[in-house]
């Protein structure tokens, strides 16, 4: 970990220092932003840890906890909303046993995220499963995809 952090910090020092970019790179490297990383950067770069935490909690894209193996992103844009994204999300939450504010399942196999708009409104409702965009989603289609993922992740 230390090696990775060092190279990220060097990168930061060379370019015009930008906390957001640093956090983005950190998340790319670890899948989330580990607390140790924040304190390490804070010491190394002499930037208060509070700044990192403030920025990381402001932007929706940053994760302070490890995410699931499968990432399902449901679009909640207007077009998706009027075409029933709510129901898809509610079903998913039920299927994955997720409480209201919970995003990742206990077994860390699934993370369900909601984004404002992925800009693919013509094929609403849209769900992104592990970076692949699925258009014209329905609860049925979603249930089928979820079954495939569940079987896949049991192996």
């Amino acid at each position: 970990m230390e090696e990775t952090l060092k190279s990220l910090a060097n990168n930061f020092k060379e370019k015009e220092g930008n906390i957001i970019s640093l956090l983005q790179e950190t998340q790319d490297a670890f899948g989330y932003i580990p607390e140790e990383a924040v304190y390490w950067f804070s010491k190394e770069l002499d930037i208060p840890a509070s700044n990192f935490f403030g920025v990381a909690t402001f932007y929706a894209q940053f994760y302070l906890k490890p995410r699931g193996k499968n990432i399902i992103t449901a679009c909640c844009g207007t077009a998706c909303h009027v075409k029933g994204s709510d129901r898809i999300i509610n079903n998913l939450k039920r299927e994955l046993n997720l409480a209201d504010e919970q995003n990742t399942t206990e077994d860390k196999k699934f993370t369900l995220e909601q984004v404002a708009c992925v800009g693919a409104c013509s094929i609403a409702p849209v769900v992104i499963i592990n970076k692949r965009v699925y258009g014209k989603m329905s609860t049925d289609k979603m249930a089928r995809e979820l079954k495939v993922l569940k079987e896949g992740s049991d192996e």
Partner: protein
Amino acid sequence: MNKNITIQVCMGTGGIAAGGLEVLDAFESLMKEKNIPAEFKKECSMHKVGCRGLCARDVLVDVIADNRRTIYQYIKPEMVERIVDEHVVGGNPVSEWQVDEDYHKFHEKQVKVVLSDCGNIDPEDINAYMAVDGYKAVEKVFTSMTPEEVIDMMKKSGLRGRGGAGFPTGVKWEACRKAEASQKYIICNADEGDPGAFMDRAVIEGNPHAVIEGMVIGAYAIGASKGYVYIRAEYPLAVERLKKAIKDAKERGFLGKNIFGKGFDFDIKIKLGAGAFVCGEETALIASIEGQRGMPRAKPPFPVHRGLWGKPTVINNVETLANIPYIIKKGHEWFSSYGTEKSKGTKVFALTGKVKNTGLIEVPMGITLREIIYDIGGGIEGGKALKAVQTGGPSGGCITPDMLDINVDYESLAKVGSIVGSGGMIALDEDDCMVNVAKYFLQFTQSESCGKCVPCRIGTKRLLEIMDRITKGSGRQGDIELLEKLSSDIKAASLCGLGQTAPNPVLSTIKYFREEYEAHLQGKCPAKACREMLTYHIIEEFCKGCGACLRACPAGAITGEKKKPHKIAPEICIKCGACFDVCKFKAVGKE
């Protein structure tokens, strides 16, 4: 066999989601497999193109044979073989897969400036852009125009910011040009965050070089040596194409040091947004590029005087910038020949919702809303009645069917309480509850409030709470008036555009659909969309006892024997609507 064949596969985010990559693969492997002669192959080019608007019909494939273009819709990989056999080799287009009349109608009333090259050129190939006179505008500007002349031309063209506020681009540039500083910046705002809007994504995916060219011209006009594109990370394809475009432009000398030997340096960096709608606001965007929390600050001072790192900065939207090369090349008279007196040129809209043809459209300013909805959009799906058109997304308002002949331009829309905004346009039909729609937008803005100022942080929360209780059937007398009062106070007292416009959907729906609010207060949702206010029951005479609803019910509220009418226990029912969705016999009723 045909000669000179070009196959174009639509490869925007929509196209890829519908299987565009697989379709292109299928074409390529078939050509190989069928051992189509080498000579032919040389003359048959295949390439990806950006979005051409009608994403609902993806995957769209164009086969151009001997200068005749045939457009296929809904193409899947397994259909490719027949197209190759019959059309490419045999010379006979597959007629039943071609686009229908609607497709042409969709394009007929549109005027394409910004999108003129989208969907025709390979966005990943700088040569393709240059083949359609790309970078000729930069050449013209650097070889024959002074910065002042460029600014003058922009002012004369009447181009106004396409990001929402509609501020004249030339005036903005002039203010920044006049500001004295050792360093200036130009920023392309590609933080398109309105739910239901995807113009900027499509433009960058389809023609990234036009945006870069616009930025170079802007930089020259204001005297900026550095530029940033602030783009959403949710648009990975757009980012990738933009990166490649910047690299290619640099190699050709359109970016970098000493452009056209004029001693002018300009370079562009990409900054990825991190998921905050408020960063579309200029001062928040600047804070975000500086690496800080995207909290807006009060204006004045304006960014053209004190912007990024305290230096004069121009921030232009993607669509605004993509217009610029075309204005330079074709002249301001050409540009201002489109549009109305105060709104010149064209505007790209993301037409979505309940119209038949959803997609990206570009229309001259001043076109009527009726033309957009009925001619381009093809009318409402399923023969239902249009209830309203929502424009401007979460900052906008709605327009009712009796106002359909309104001209779509900045002033006319503002007059009826809506806005052009960044270009989201959503058609709503009788199944949509206006209270619910307003609540949806408010939910969005409330969750995107940065939290800096009180009216937005707490005010939108309170607004949403009131809206929430109304849609759940527990609204109180006086709630509508309270909504109006609180909305107007939030608008007046909030710090930035987000808070100042967040109550618009509420005010606009109260203005035109007050009776729907009143119905909710009396416990009825006329559109039957607010699920907490409904009760589900099974209509015995239609129920076949198939058990589909019983299996679908997540709460176990449905009981019944096979082939006998089922029953819903209202005390267990969680009103999710799953039974309503799965019933094939319309035997589930909601009241």
